[in-house]
């Protein structure tokens, strides 16, 4: 930058002019996120009652902030496909378009905090009026690194059993209190699955199962924790994959496919479709689907009419289920101005204030005030999976968690896609993950 007297005077004049004006000049903020692109349906929506689903709600929230904030800030969102999100975010540090706000999984945060790529938010929280004490302790802890807060916790999400009650009734798998009867042991899972198939002729389980899809790895991790084994050590240097417990869990999942209890050809949308079309009784998917499936079932247009949700059962003993957390971060950018930072913090506060709206998706809130509120309790189906909060277990926050995740499902999915033996798959997973962890500094 040149420092000429004329430029200096111009800058001063501009500053004076801007402070004299009632509203500051337009502050443009860039938001990087996944959650989908639904401009066609929600591009102009600001009424939260009209927004549904992750994409709809976050788009409407962004629109609402743009319409209501007093700083003259406009947030423009760039949506990136979920699988490519972190590649993109990382690239922006080199390509000069570092976003002002970005979503981040708590499991991935270490990659960024260890390299000083995020802005610490302690001061921002204080200045923006965000109450730290309101966050669930675990959530705040996940957002903290080296004693500093680096992210705004937004939700806790886990995998669930989404259940088609009509099919369960047909198979006679309903308890006296109307809840679905779910397996309590690995043997039961297979026997009940077979019984279900005999009685209804449909698939017991539906899940995404293609080469690059990781839902079943999350289930497998849940089964590992249920047996008391830590998949990754807390310091992120060792992985316990190729173990007897891992084998049991892997064999159970493979058996689902071997016994014809699940369709191995489904991808994410195919699995959802199968569930909505009444072709499978249980869909293994996350908390983010609750609002969607509830709406579909209520609309009467899907074959799914009687929808219920259940915690992933403690098939291997303890009640544990895979969970992760969405947070919002402000990536470190030396060229960001003070106004932009202020506006970004204001956006974070706005999101935090509207935490309840986000919880409508099906995700669990991380603010105790919201969790204890009557509105939250009144949300459909929430009581059915209230146990998930206790059971929620996340992988320890280690570097390269994305790479670890991908290495795991790459070899795991081979079990039903290519007929690999579980022991082989686990051995391969162990060596791939070891190789990745070795590079962690």
């Amino acid at each position, binding site marked *: 930058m040149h420092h000429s007297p004329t430029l200096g005077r111009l800058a001063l004049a501009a500053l004076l002019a801007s402070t004299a004006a009632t509203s500051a000049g337009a502050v443009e903020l860039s938001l990087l996120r996944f959650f*989908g*692109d*639904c*401009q*066609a349906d929600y*591009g102009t929506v600001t009424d939260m009652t009209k927004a549904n689903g992750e*994409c709809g709600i976050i788009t409407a929230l962004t629109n609402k902030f743009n319409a209501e904030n007093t700083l003259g800030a406009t947030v423009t969102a*760039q*949506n*990136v*496909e*979920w*699988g*490519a999100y972190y590649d*993109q975010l990382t*690239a*922006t540090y*080199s*390509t*000069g*378009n570092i976003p002002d706000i970005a979503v981040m999984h708590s499991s991935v945060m270490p990659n960024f905090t260890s390299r000083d790529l995020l802005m610490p938010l302690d001061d921002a929280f204080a200045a923006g009026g965000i109450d730290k004490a309101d966050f669930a302790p675990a959530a705040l802890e996940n957002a903290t690194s080296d004693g500093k807060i680096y992210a705004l916790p937004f939700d806790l999400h886990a995998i669930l059993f989404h259940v088609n009650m009509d099919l369960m009734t047909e198979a006679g798998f309903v308890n006296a209190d109307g809840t679905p009867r779910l397996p309590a042991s690995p043997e039961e899972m297979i026997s009940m699955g077979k019984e279900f198939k005999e009685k209804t002729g449909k698939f017991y389980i539906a899940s*995404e199962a293609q080469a690059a*899809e990781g839902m079943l790895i999350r289930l497998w991790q849940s089964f590992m924790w249920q047996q008391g084994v830590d998949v990754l050590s807390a310091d992120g240097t060792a992985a316990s994959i190729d173990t007897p417990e891992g084998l049991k869990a892997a064999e159970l999942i493979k058996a689902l496919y071997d016994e014809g209890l699940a369709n191995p050809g489904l*991808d*994410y*949308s195919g699995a*959802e*479709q199968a569930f909505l079309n009444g072709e499978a009784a249980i869909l293994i998917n996350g908390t983010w689907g609750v609002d969607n499936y509830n709406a579909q079932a209520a609309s009467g247009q899907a074959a799914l009419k009687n929808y219920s949700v259940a915690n992933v059962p403690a098939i291997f003993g303890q009640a544990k289920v895979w969970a992760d957390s969405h947070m919002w971060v402000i990536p470190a950018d030396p060229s960001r101005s003070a106004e932009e930072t202020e506006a970004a913090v204001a956006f974070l506060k706005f999101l935090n204030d509207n935490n309840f709206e986000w919880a409508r998706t099906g995700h669990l809130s991380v603010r105790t005030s919201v969790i204890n509120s009557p509105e939250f309790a009144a949300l459909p189906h929430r009581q059915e999976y209230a146990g998930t909060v206790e059971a929620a277990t996340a992988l320890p926050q280690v570097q390269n968690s994305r790479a670890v995740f991908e290495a795991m499902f790459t070899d795991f999915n081979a079990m039903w896609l290519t007929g690999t033996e579980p022991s082989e798959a686990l051995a391969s997973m162990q060596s791939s993950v070891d190789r990745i962890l070795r590079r962690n500094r």
Partner: protein
Amino acid sequence: MSALQRPRKGRALDLVILGVTLVVAALWLLPMIWVVSMSLKPNEELMRSTSGLLPIPFTIENYTNLMRVSAVPLWLFHSVVVALSMTLMVLVVSSLAGYAFARLHFPFKRTLFVLTIAGLMVPEHAVLIPLFTMFADWGLHNSHTALVMPRVAVPIGVFLMTQFMRAIPRELEEAAELDHASHFTIFWRIMLPLSVPALTTLGLFTFIFAWNDFLWPLVSATRADMFTVTVGLASIQGNFAFSEGLGSVMASAVFASLPIVVLFLIFQRFIVAGVAMGAGK
């Protein structure tokens, strides 16, 4: 007998071959027809079933939605700008260098030519990472410059132009030289016009290459408003997009391909002819 005529013997065999080729061509077209058909069906219908080559029920809502909110036109703009600039610059740079190698004498000519040809062996991905860091250091990512410049100095371009120009008979230039015409005049007035076939081939290949460039724009143009068609389409292909708007995704793909298909249909007569004379040796 013109160059494209066939010997008369074996008419029956000819017909059989033609028949087989027609079947292959029909199969070849099938995927394209299917995709276009899906783009003309409503998303809800496609969630139920994707079979059927005829677009019934019919709708143009996928396309009208596209016009309203989609970024496809912006992607097209970037792709066109990048492809045109790259093609133009490659043609200019390659023909200039080709003339030098074909007609001029200068020290180290042989060395420089070998150095250029050696570059044919270097895959673009061997220099992807260093180029990425270089452009990052210069702060030039997310720009047309970054998307075009690394592809301008292509050895194959120089190679093609050199070979072609070498084969042009010298009489015309000798006449010009007698008139004391400068090399640049000779280049501009004589060599370039005569090189149109080679230029067409090179231009065509470059344009298509630029249009299809994927990995480099993927890592360099990370801002949504700088996406080219290739990168933009990849960004909407994720899991979630497929479940909701299959028709919309297909419409985007069709719309994004229209300009280049139209271009191709217009210029197809020149394509084979141009290639014919360009690839002469």
